């Protein structure tokens, strides 16, 4: 390591264990003044444990932390803040009902005659935010501002309070592209002032756009630290995954789908004020990608097919027989499965064990009078935990304790256990780290090769291109285009999503 720049923060041999897990195992980490240092790793790699240990949320079990050469041991986040380490989380934890100015100076308001001096607070807030290129009415309630502005306010407060080290924990997850640019400009301004920034993210693009160095953790251990300037994406991804990947996006070797009769066939299926009528045929072994912007009717299409909402027009045939699907239960009985987008509220049953979650759909189908015995369900769960490589200490662990990717795999297992013929996956890779991402995509391909009919909704166009045989593009709640063969590529899909609605273009 060159000592051209002074070390702002230095972690040596940081260790943190929880009952049964070593979350951090002798991790070294350095932060120079004025650099952006990305912290990367799959879910469960130890990123958030490192952040929490650094900021006093957890007490470390071993190792040392030096801030500008002085050993520190923050007792809590406020203590860390006083020492100079501020943190901004993905979900801004300020008070939405208070004004921007009040949020900035909460707990340290300028006072006049013992009362809060609102005028001076506002003036100080304006001065502070000008430094961030933000010209807004500081009297507005924070909750009325965009997420990006809230994020900037949170950063401004954190920097103003601490001013040496700024930790950004997935700050861009809920920002759009333009807002990300603004945020990055602000981060660069801060580093120019000599502040060191630790940047936790899942987005590799952003690492390459912003960071000077990247440190990769895996399973609580340090894999390595790289200068971004001399690295390429593949190197970093390999470090994160700990295994070789051919290329980042693999195009699936497509079997020519023969003219097998469709498993699911919709004709003019729709529901008023929900989804415009659409035609859709899905054959065994075929993966249909569903693309479109948020709110374009993707999830609505899935919920209509799975009986969560009932169609009020059109016809649906399954295996050639006309059916009416009145409930998820009816859909499941037909051999359908659905992994919803919102895993936490619609997917997992958090307090129940991984085993019970995996067995749930099969049990529901068998009915309450024919219980799966404990050994039976245990064998089922163990089989899928092995087959899908679900990482859990054991099958009896409550599923809410698993990482997002492993929860997603358990939900897949729940449906695979019912031996479905048609599976709908809504954003199967959302909020999942790169490693689990690739695994889920590989799983999707494997399922297709096994003859399952799949419908996959995703915002990640590259992903859709990787596995889809056909892509349905939605806009404004109607199915506007179906792309096949060579047309399944990022360009064409994006163009179809973005195209102006032309009268008569809707199929």
């Amino acid at each position: 390591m060159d000592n051209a720049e002074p070390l702002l923060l230095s972690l040596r041999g940081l260790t943190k264990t929880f009952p049964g897990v070593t979350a951090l195992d002798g991790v070294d980490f350095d932060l120079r003044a004025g650099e952006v240092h990305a912290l990367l790793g799959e879910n469960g790699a130890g990123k958030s444990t490192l952040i929490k240990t650094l900021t006093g949320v957890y007490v470390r079990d071993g190792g040392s932390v030096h801030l500008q050469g002085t050993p520190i041991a923050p007792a809590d986040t406020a203590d860390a803040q006083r020492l100079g380490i501020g943190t901004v989380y993905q979900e801004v934890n300020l008070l939405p009902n208070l004004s921007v100015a009040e949020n900035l100076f909460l707990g340290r308001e300028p006072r006049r005659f013992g009362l809060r001096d609102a005028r001076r607070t506002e003036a100080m807030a304006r001065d502070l935010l000008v430094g961030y290129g933000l010209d807004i009415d500081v009297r507005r309630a924070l909750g009325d501002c965009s997420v990006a502005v809230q994020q900037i306010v949170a950063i401004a407060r954190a920097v103003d309070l601490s001013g040496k080290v700024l930790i950004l924990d997935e700050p861009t997850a809920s920002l759009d592209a333009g807002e990300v640019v603004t945020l990055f400009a602000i981060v660069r301004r801060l580093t120019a002032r000599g502040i060191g920034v630790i940047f936790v993210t899942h987005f590799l693009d952003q690492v390459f756009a912003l960071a000077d160095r990247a440190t990769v953790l895996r399973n609580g251990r340090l894999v390595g630290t790289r200068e971004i300037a001399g690295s390429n994406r593949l190197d970093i991804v390999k470090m994160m995954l700990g295994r070789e990947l051919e290329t980042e996006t693999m195009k699936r070797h497509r079997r020519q789908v023969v003219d097998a009769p469709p498993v699911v066939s919709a004709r003019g299926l729709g529901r008023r004020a929900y989804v415009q009528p659409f035609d859709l045929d899905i054959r065994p072994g075929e993966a249909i990608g569903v693309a479109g912007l948020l709110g374009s009717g993707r999830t609505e299409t899935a919920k209509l097919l799975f009986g969560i909402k009932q169609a009020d027009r059109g016809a649906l045939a399954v295996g050639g027989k006309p059916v009416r699907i009145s409930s998820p239960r009816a859909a499941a009985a037909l051999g359908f499965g659905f992994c919803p987008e919102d895993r936490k509220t619609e997917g997992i049953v958090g307090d129940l064990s991984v085993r019970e979650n995996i067995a749930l759909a099969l049990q529901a189908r068998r009915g309450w009078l024919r219980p799966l015995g404990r050994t039976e369900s245990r064998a089922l769960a163990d089989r899928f935990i092995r087959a899908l490589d679900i990482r859990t200490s054991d099958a009896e662990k409550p599923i809410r304790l698993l990482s997002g990717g492993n929860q997603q795999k358990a939900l897949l297992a729940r449906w695979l256990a019912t031996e479905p013929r048609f599976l709908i996956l809504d954003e199967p890779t959302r909020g999942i780290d790169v490693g689990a991402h690739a695994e889920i995509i590989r799983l999707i391909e494997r399922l297709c090769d096994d003859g399952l009919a799949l419908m996959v909704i995703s915002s990640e166009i590259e992903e859709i291109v990787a596995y889809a045989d056909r892509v349905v593009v939605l806009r404004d709640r109607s199915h506007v285009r179906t792309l096949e063969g060579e047309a399944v590529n990022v360009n064409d899909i994006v163009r179809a999503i973005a195209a102006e609605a032309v009268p008569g273009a809707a199929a």
Partner: protein
Amino acid sequence: MTSTLPGRLSFGALPQFATLAAVLLANWLVFPDFFDLRLQDGRLFGSVIDVLNRGAPVAILALGMTLVIATKGVDLSVGAVMAICGAVAATMAAADYSLVAILAAALAVGALCGLWNGFLVAVLDIQPIIATLILMVTGRGIAQLVTEGQIVTFTHEGLIAVAGSSALGLPMPVVIALVLGLALAALVRLTALGLLIESIGVNRTASTYAGVDSRSVLLATYMISGLTAAVAGVIAASDIRGADANNAGLWLELDAILAVVVGGTSLFGGRFSILLSLVGALVIQAMNTGILLSGYPPELNLIVKAVVIAAILVLQSPAAGRLFGFLRRS
């Protein structure tokens, strides 16, 4: 199925049994004869037996309440359902129907009340606390309609025997509570019903999306609660040899909820244990009896009870759990 009872007991049941032991010990301290038993005419007598006997109605209510609470619901109507079913039983006994007919009618009325609650909750999606409040309020009026505003009394040998006879040396209500508890535990744990109830209680949307027939399961749990309330109502009527529409089962819904909570089932739904709810009911009754035996002025009873219950709940709270965990580590 889900964590089997023995498995559950070995882990989480310690606070409940410790609480019961503490309350029994306290009773023994204020009343040294507390554990004395004597056999008379093939039947056991003593304070402990009295606790079991007096506690039986609440214990039986707690059985159904456990399932309802596990679905993230609550059944406030059980006290009123007791009154209705007691009124039906007493009125029929006064008219000299056979015991079988009386029991069948009372249970059918209880099941019907449960179905009504279940319909409001599962089909109309009304919040359980409001849905069951309706029957809680109107139930006593219905009971009065059944008894035509009178306090009905009877001398029906068969019905009197429901609370008045004994089996295996124990009062009949105790035997009924035990048998019912075992039967219900078997019903939910030997079938998949227990898993489905817990699953709905933790996340009804996700369970429905997984193909669980949430509506039917909810209907079933409220119906079971109505049935257990009917049994408790018949026992109460048999005990006083009559039906008092205004006072039968009054406030017992609250004792039943308390028993379930003391038994460790969370009001947020999910994991439940029928056996521990029975322990919870015992704790409550042992405390009631203890306060009576101690000779405190009766006006203090409710306050003492409230303090003890508050202490139990604080000890079982997650915050206390964290504190104990912390103390153990350091």
